[in-house]
């Protein structure tokens, strides 16, 4: 069965397109509104009724990275460059680690079923379903004892474990989907298990691995609770600083907040489009494929 896109039953014409377009735009309006506001001058941002046609400006995006923090002071770097780097670096390294460890486990769960596998898989999924706030309580204490709070090592280790259950279940679902005939034939011809894995199974799931990677990166990029409690000034990630920014100022700086949110969500929205075919599998941790 084709897995290429979110499938449909039958067809409808442009009439349906019109209805769907109106509803989709209303649904997407909160995102659109923020993106538009990000390009508005201070006056346009506060205008009512909402202006949809205006002269766009990038001032807000500049002030995400450079702005005056005190009245009449000089513009200073806000540190958001570092925070974006942190989000990418911490996300990238932890997802890569989780994917390597996870793929090996996923292959074993899929190809060498053992007694007790169900229990392990359940345990792995439970660690993921666990409320983050429950998991964080002991980890917070242990991180303090071992001096891991605010370090890259600490948060990367934590995110690796955070991404691992997702990687195992996702990648396993891709291995489960493969047609076994080819590898069985290779085994009959005397190929080693390593060769079967490396030359036959792995190449067939490259696309799946890529989807898992991107998905896990999004999850990590979006994560807030762990980052709030376990990162320091040097390792802070974007969502933590966004929440600090809106909580800290007296009045809301609409343009600035919108620009921040826009920079934070645009990558996710774009990547979601590329992932459309794997969304169902991704959001259910590979438990539902069709």
């Amino acid at each position, binding site marked *: 069965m084709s897995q290429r896109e979110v499938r449909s039953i039958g067809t409808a014409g442009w009439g349906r397109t019109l209805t769907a*377009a109106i509803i989709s735009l209303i649904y997407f309006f909160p995102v659109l509104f923020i993106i538009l506001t990000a390009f508005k001058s201070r006056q346009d941002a506060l205008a009512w009724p909402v202006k949809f046609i205006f002269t766009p400006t990038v001032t807000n995006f500049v002030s995400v990275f450079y702005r005056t923090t005190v009245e009449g002071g000089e513009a200073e770097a806000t540190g958001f460059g570092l925070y974006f780097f942190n989000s990418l670096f911490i996300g990238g390294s932890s997802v890569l680690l989780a994917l390597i*460890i996870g793929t090996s*486990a996923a292959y074993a769960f899929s190809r060498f079923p053992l007694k007790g596998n169900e229990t392990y898989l359940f345990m792995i999924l439970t660690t993921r379903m666990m409320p983050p706030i429950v998991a964080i309580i002991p980890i*917070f204490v242990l991180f303090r004892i071992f001096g891991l709070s605010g370090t890259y090592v600490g948060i990367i280790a*934590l995110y690796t474990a955070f991404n691992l259950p997702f990687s195992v279940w996702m990648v396993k679902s891709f291995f489960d989907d493969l047609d076994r005939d080819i590898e069985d034939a290779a085994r009959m011809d005397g190929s080693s298990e390593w060769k079967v894995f490396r030359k036959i199974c792995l190449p067939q799931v490259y696309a799946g691995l890529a989807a898992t990677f991107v998905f896990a990166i999004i999850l990590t990029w979006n994560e807030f609770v762990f980052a709030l409690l376990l990162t320091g000034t040097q390792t802070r990630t974007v969502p933590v600083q966004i929440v600090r920014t809106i909580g800290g100022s007296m009045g809301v700086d609409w343009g600035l907040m919108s620009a921040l949110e826009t920079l934070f969500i645009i990558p996710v929205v774009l990547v979601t489009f590329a992932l459309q075919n794997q969304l169902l599998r991704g959001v259910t941790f590979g438990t539902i494929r069709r």
Partner: protein
Amino acid sequence: MPAPRSARGFLGWLLAPERRGPLLIAPAIATLVIVNIFPLLWSYGLSFFSYNAKKIGVPPRWRGLDNYVDLFTDEDVWGRFQNTAVIVIGSVAVQLVVGFLLALLFAREFPLRRYLLMLVLAPMMLSLSAVGVFFKLFYEPTFGFIPRLVQTFTGEPFVILSTPVKATIAIVFADAWMWSPFVMLLVLAGLVSVPKYLYEAAEIDRASAWRRFRTITFPYIRSLLLLALLFRTIETFKIFDVPYVLTEGGPGTSTETISVYLFRVAFNYFQTGRASALGYIVLFGVIVLTSLYLYAIQSRSSESIE
């Protein structure tokens, strides 16, 4: 078992075919044990003590089951569970209805469907904290979009987060907006799994639309609706980011969900022992729900094989 005689012998023993599975799984299990399981067991121990995570030097004081007894008799805890339940029921119900309707809208192929689908699916991929910030901006009393919109019609200022009921609705609205697409995806998967010949047969029998839906479509989406319900219940039960950012639990404690309350006990009051005990109670609930979810998954896959 005889001890391996040489390094090569040991390596040979280790790499024997029957140990392939365990060996490949070992790194994953080890990581989870170190980073997740061990801390959890440790906090299980802590749940019997009085302890402050900020004062690492001060040794924990033994309290036996007192933390648990306190929690079960504490009206605050009961109230936070109620807040959470209201949000879960409200939000999941809205998600199921809106998700279902969106799925019907997108069930057929039409021009530009792929692009419009992206607009609807985007919210669920966003960061929970970002969505919290979104709606904080939308609900902002003086310049926020929704208060201004309402004021245009009523002429009176509209402050959304001022009363418990309105604040709860505000959270449900934000959460349901974010997650209805999730239900839509699952229902869509159910709708397309209905074999076409059934509809063709119904056409010949001139079955009414309602009858077609009840006897053909619904049985195919029933199991997926149940999965959506369970999955969203688990996730919404844990809701933290949105109320934390949006209302900070207020007004009063009317929107303080169990996760937000846990956060306060653990990281504002630093009653680490008590927080660990409450964490275990919450964890127990999640484990039960997760088992139900996996059970539903398994019965669905055995259904489709038959």
